């Protein structure tokens, strides 16, 4: 376990106070946050490039926050890769081994494994400026991994790549991680990338870790509306936990002028009766009902009637804006293309939609209940 605890630092007007972050070994730990949330500051302080006002960084059971960067055993891969242009690929790869005076047969074998895993043997005598974008990424990864660091920090290394190359390098990162089992702290603002690579995801907003956990927890069960908004969730509605509990592990939520009974596991922990909350409805889980088709009993309590306000073809799916009758709200619905074709939907068409209980998620509204 790599522990970053009680970390505090200031950079201009930006502050990070008492931040705690535990990293699992042998996996990708994702630090996910919007631009300006303090991700790079944390990275720089973990590497040792930025002094801490206070805090501890424990790596391998040893406090390293007072060590210079070269003594920490943490490799750094910046967004621009910073391959040394005056050195060949081989010299770039060997830089860390030379600097750390690692000359054992084991070190050499590890370097060979890295070169093989990255498939860069044919590039060894070339200079970085003659390499393609993907080759540069591979060499930079190899340079970071060659001296067997205890931790590798990656600062949005794929942010500037085109989608095809980004996908290729993501696959490479996953296979490389599988082969070498290195521990990584990977900083990104890219949600898809975080989900694809992340074993553990920490959401950083305004210098605070808002949520940390397995990727499914973060993406399917955000603990606050702030996180949900950062993750791009759109169907967020103000609601309230009813004072009277239906019992049996269920809770009653007042929303859209009606009451929805939801299983307790469809809500964040710690909600109290009468609390104002935010209800999230997953757009890909909303069912558009076909006229004349029988409706399952389980769906009957949560059916809304209305019309299609807008349809956008998003390529991978169809984006539908649904306006329920008599309500001042809109719902976003994501339909698979084949379902959309079968339904033959058009704008202004009256439709009925149904929502399963599992399609909802309830979380506290941080505007009303600030985090302690």
């Amino acid at each position, binding site marked *: 376990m790599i522990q970053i605890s009680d970390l505090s630092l200031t950079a201009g007007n930006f502050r990070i106070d008492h931040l705690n972050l535990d990293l699992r070994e042998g996996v990708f730990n994702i630090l996910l946050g919007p631009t300006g949330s303090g991700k790079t500051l944390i990275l720089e302080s973990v590497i040792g490039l930025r002094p801490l006002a206070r805090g501890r960084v424990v790596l391998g059971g040893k406090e390293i926050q007072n060590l210079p960067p070269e003594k920490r055993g943490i490799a750094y891969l910046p967004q621009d890769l*910073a391959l040394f242009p005056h050195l060949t690929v081989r010299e770039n790869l060997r830089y860390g081994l030379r600097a750390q005076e690692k000359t054992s047969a084991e070190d050499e074998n590890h370097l060979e494994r890295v070169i093989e895993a990255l498939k860069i043997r044919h590039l060894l005598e070339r200079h970085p400026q003659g390499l393609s974008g993907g080759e540069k990424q591979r060499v930079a990864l190899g340079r970071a991994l060659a001296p067997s660091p205890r931790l590798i920090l990656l600062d949005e290394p794929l942010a500037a790549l085109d989608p095809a190359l980004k996908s290729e390098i993501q696959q490479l990162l996953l296979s490389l991680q599988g082969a070498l089992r290195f521990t990584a702290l990977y900083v990104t603002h890219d949600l898809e990338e975080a989900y694809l690579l992340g074993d553990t995801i920490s959401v950083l907003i305004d210098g605070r870790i808002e949520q940390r956990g397995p990727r499914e927890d973060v993406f399917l069960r955000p603990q606050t509306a702030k996180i949900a908004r950062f993750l791009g969730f759109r169907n967020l509605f103000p609601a309230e936990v009813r004072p009277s509990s239906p019992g049996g592990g269920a809770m009653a939520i007042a929303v859209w002028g009606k009451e929805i009974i939801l299983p307790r596991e469809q809500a964040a922990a710690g909600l109290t009766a009468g609390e104002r909350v935010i209800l999230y409805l997953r757009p890909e889980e909303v069912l558009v009902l076909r006229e004349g088709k029988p409706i399952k009993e389980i769906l009957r309590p949560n059916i809304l009637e209305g019309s299609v306000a807008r349809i956008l073809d998003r390529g991978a799916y169809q984006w539908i804006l649904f306006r329920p009758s008599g309500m001042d709200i809109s719902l976003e619905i994501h339909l698979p293309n084949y379902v959309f074709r079968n339904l033959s939907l058009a704008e202004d068409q009256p439709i009925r939609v149904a929502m399963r209980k599992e399609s909802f998620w309830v979380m506290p509204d941080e505007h009303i209940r600030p985090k302690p």
Partner: protein
Amino acid sequence: MSFFKTSVLAAFLLFFFYAALILSLLTAFEGKGFWELLRAPETLFAIRLSLTAATLAAILAVAIGLPAAYALSRKNFFGKKVVDTILELPLIMSPIALGAALLIFFNTRAGEAIQSQGILFVFEFPGIVLAQFATIAGLATRLMKTALDEITPRYEAVARSLGSSAWQAFWRITFPLAFRGLVSAVILCWAKAVGEFGATVTLAGTMAFKTETMPTAIFMALASADIPKTIILILILAGIGLTALYAVRLLDKRPQVL
């Protein structure tokens, strides 16, 4: 006329301005006596003195200016803006004023104490080196800082994360990458030192075979109305300077590793 053409015309106007100055020297230059004057002991002494003093001044400027340039390029520290501003002092201050300031300094107790240690500056060879150093050190630091600014600090950050100390990261990564820019800066400053007159003459005087540098020799020849000698000395000085500047251009033309 388009903006582009106007700008090219301006560049050629400047070129013709300086070319006309050189050509005017050549029209008055009779050619006779050139080699005799070049081989004359006092000319050779002046050339040797100028080159030696300028080289020492440039070495000193690099020895102090390079670490200073690194600090100004990479670090934020208290008083950085003040230090940065003072570096431009020699650019805005007349060289004679700079020389006078040095002369006055060596008449203070601190200056006399320094001279009493055995190194005499006033009207002596070390005075030439010091005057040239004072003239070029700020410029050298500024130019070297510009060369270092062009190398992203992330190279050093990565090098340090791979196990290099701050010094090793500078020596193995930043220095080789900035080398051409640094050498250009040194050559330019060296050439400026070779041509330095005001501060040198004020602090070191004009004694033949002692403190008479090339620019001083030109001044002395002109003062004694020896125009042919003046022209020949100017041509020699211009030749040294232009060779140095051309060397800078050659450095720029070498294939980039970047």
